[in-house]
């Protein structure tokens, strides 16, 4: 499909009335290698709405951007005429400490949210495993980290959302109270939608108290079955872990680490129990730097995978990863929330795309058999060109119908999401 050429001057004029900060895009504004024409920096939900209305009239395709750390996740968009940058919408609008909620603009970095709510001894129980994420980006990519074992993910923490549709209409769902079943929960649809349904401009989250104490208990493993025994032991114990991380590096022994959070006396006792559950050689300590990070460095050109599976399938996934990489002659670092059935993988930048494809296919077959999936989150262009990054998606037809309703002209990040949505 060849897109009609964009008249940048005309588009810019159309946007000028909508937002006072519109600039021509530079090379750094490209979206996963796709050149963009314009960048708008609206400062409010109303301004985002104006921008999207103007974009609709001018027929521009639109990609929303937070800090840009995960703009290469998913597939490259077919076109991205306009980047809507939310950097000017970075305010914590309200922290109602007594109600344990926070109301933030979508461009706010997660770290800034944490800083604000920590002043009242609270936290947003959402990890930022790569660092630098904004609220909007974290929602769009369904970002999560180790503490999902105890607190769930964005879908469990988001209680209200404001979004701007492709046609510029502003819609809210949910609200500011933790319990609320009035109307459809649009927040759920937005989480993990990769910017294809609307631009999130504001979000309300439930918060949790910061724990007074924490302890990390770690144990090494040589064989996948051993890791599974350790993880199952901890999960079936009553130690209420905040996180159960599993690492299987390309070489050397693997590691299971269990994070316990709470009050001093309680954490000490549970750490003891966790040590027993993990077996001989388990050690207690503090969180090392980089703990819980994804196994790749952003911008390194690594292929980044996400594998999900039923909890009891951990050993099979670890074993398949080992054999698939050995057969393909490549290396794979695996790390993630083994206690939640999620592992992230990284294949080095120089891995041949065909080898990536074969590892992904093997892992995907295993995870699918275990009720899950394997997705390529990020990869170099050569890999994305030959690998089915999203894989098969059940209920795809229904998803298309949802997209069709929200964005019938396919102007929001077209092609970035599953099935070419």
């Amino acid at each position, binding site marked *: *499909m060849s897109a009609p050429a964009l008249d940048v001057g005309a588009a810019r004029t159309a946007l000028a009335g909508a937002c006072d900060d519109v600039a021509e895009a530079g090379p750094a504004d490209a979206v996963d290698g796709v050149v963009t024409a314009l960048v708008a920096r609206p400062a409010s939900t109303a301004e985002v709405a104006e921008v999207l209305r103007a974009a609709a009239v001018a027929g521009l395709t639109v990609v929303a951007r937070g800090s840009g750390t995960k703009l290469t996740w998913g597939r490259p968009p077919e076109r991205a005429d306009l980047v809507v940058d939310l950097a000017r919408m970075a305010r914590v609008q309200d922290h109602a*400490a*007594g*109600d344990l909620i926070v109301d933030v603009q979508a461009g706010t970095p997660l770290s800034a949210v944490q800083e604000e709510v920590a002043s009242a001894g609270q936290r947003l129980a959402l990890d930022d495993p790569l660092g630098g994420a904004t609220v909007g980006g974290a929602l769009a990519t369904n970002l999560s980290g180790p503490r*999902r074992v105890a607190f*769930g993910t964005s879908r*469990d923490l988001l209680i209200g959302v404001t979004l701007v549709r492709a046609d510029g*209409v*502003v*819609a*809210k*769902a949910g*609200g500011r*109270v*933790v*319990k*609320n*079943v*009035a*109307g*459809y*929960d*649009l927040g*759920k649809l937005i*989480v*993990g939608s990769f910017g294809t349904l609307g631009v999130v401009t504001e979000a309300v989250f439930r918060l949790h*108290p910061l724990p007074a104490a924490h302890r990390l208990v770690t144990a090494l493993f040589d064989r996948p079955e051993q890791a599974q025994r350790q993880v*199952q032991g901890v*999960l*079936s114990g*009553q130690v*209420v872990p905040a996180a159960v991380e599993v690492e299987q590096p390309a070489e050397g022994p693997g590691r299971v680490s269990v994070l316990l959070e709470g009050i001093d*006396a*309680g954490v000490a*006792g549970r750490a003891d129990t966790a040590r027993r559950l993990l077996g001989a050689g388990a050690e207690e300590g503090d969180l090392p730097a980089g703990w819980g990070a994804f196994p790749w460095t952003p911008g390194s050109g690594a292929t980044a995978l*996400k594998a*999900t599976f039923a*909890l009891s399938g951990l050993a099979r996934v670890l074993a398949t990863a080992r054999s698939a990489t050995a057969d393909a002659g490549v290396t794979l670092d695996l790390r993630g929330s083994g206690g939640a*059935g999620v592992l992230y993988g990284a294949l080095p930048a120089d891995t041949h795309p065909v080898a990536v494809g074969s590892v992904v296919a093997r892992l995907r077959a295993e995870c699918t058999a*275990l*009720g*899950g*999936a394997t997705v390529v989150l990020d990869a170099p262009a050569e890999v994305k060109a030959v690998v089915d990054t*999203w*894989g098969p*998606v059940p*209920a*795809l037809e*229904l*998803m*298309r*119908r949802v*997209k*069709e*309703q*929200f964005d*019938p*002209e*396919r102007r929001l990040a077209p092609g970035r999401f599953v099935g*070419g949505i």
Partner: protein
Amino acid sequence: MSVTHGTESTAGPVLGPVPPEATEATGSSGPDPAAMAAVIEAARAVLPPDSLIEDHIRLRTYECDGLAHYRVTPALVVLPETAEQVAAVVRACSEHGLPFVARGSGTGLSGGALPRADGVLIVTSKMRAIREVRAHDQRAVVEPGVINLDVTRAATPAGYYYAPDPSSQQICSIGGNLAENSGGAHCLKYGFTTNHVVGAQFVTPQGEIVELGGLAPDAPGYDLLGAVVGSEGTLGIATAVTVRLVRLPEDVRTLLAGFRSTDDAGAATSAIIGAGIVPAAIEMMDALAIEAAEAATHCDYPAGAGAVLVVEIDGARAEVEHELAEVERLCRENGAFEMRVATDPAERALIWKGRKSAFAAVGRISPDYIVQDGVIPRTALPEVLRAIAELSSSSGVRVANVFHAGDGNLHPLVLFDDAVEGAGEAAEKVSGAILDLCISHGGSITGEHGVGIDKAAYMPRMFSDDDLDTMQLVRCAFDPDGVANPGKVFPTPRLCGEVPGRRRGAHPLVEAGLAEAF
């Protein structure tokens, strides 16, 4: 069950005629005979004879759910046993343009399962198998008609339970829970149905069977399951549900604290949450609710209490002990004059008995009552409770409060005697004013009972036209013909047809043969 207006009462409608906006939403003109004949034929082709109900007397058994003052006799009731049977009936409805309504146990309190006179009621009571308890995966797979408590019963031997615990848990179905995103006393710490349903086999309003979510988390693609949970049967019918099982806690302690006033009890609630403690439950009852519970269950709550709190702490033993001591201290500091801690399961059960039977108990002190379900920010509790008391005294309508204090979910029970001229209207007025109070405090019109037919008219007070229109985009994606439980949730339906400038049909990518590649 018809608890809302007079416990266990089998009396006729107590609030007079169904409001006019409701008649339109119930298809009272009856079915198109030819279409209904075609649907019956399709249903007969897939269902055994005793799974079809056409007899008028038997149809009337299904005329209402827990909100008993709305009554509509369905044109046809079917009791399928498999997803394929459900899909066949739904497909026939869709083809012939007849509405269908799903029904689980019929305990809903917002009229969500109110039938359509021109349509089919699809009842899941023959779909009651617990297919799998997978302790090592912390999951269970159950059919939609399975009773909530039975999931916990099946999982307990393995050391697990199903956390969402509506007070109706001995009778309500998992399918109904999914559709209502039901809550319960312990949702303060553990979250609601939406946090515990991880997968569903689902029949769309066009009769397709799709799998949403599954055993593993974070299925790629849109979180359609998240949209379906809480959609009150308007997006289709769940025919199997995969739920998360939670490990039983090492220790559980239940505290009963008596206060002079709801102000004091509210302040204690805020103090507990403010101290960084997340109890499994914090429930409050006011004097009138206590009086009713006492009369019904002899639960022996502190004499002379203007309010009681039931606080439950669970988790690892050391933490439970520590937090219990903190909670006791905070209750005392905020005016608790009597406290009791249950030390064994029997004592625990007694404390909960008063709370869990409160709705039914109120039915004994008042012939009729309306249950409201509004939510407010927890910090507004004292203020809103005072305002409710003022509403009550100025109108002369008694209001009993028994509710989930920890998450600000009120359940004011507005009492009246329908035999008294005008009493029903006066109660409705107070009830509506309470909802307005919740909205004006930034809250919600419903925390767990759903919008149904009962509160659809209130939706525009909480949401703008654009908000509602956007929600209905989801409806149009799932149910373009508007046959799935029409008339519920939204005050006005959206026409899903062609919108000028909107393209329908295949995506360009599909046409170009690209979309299937990735």
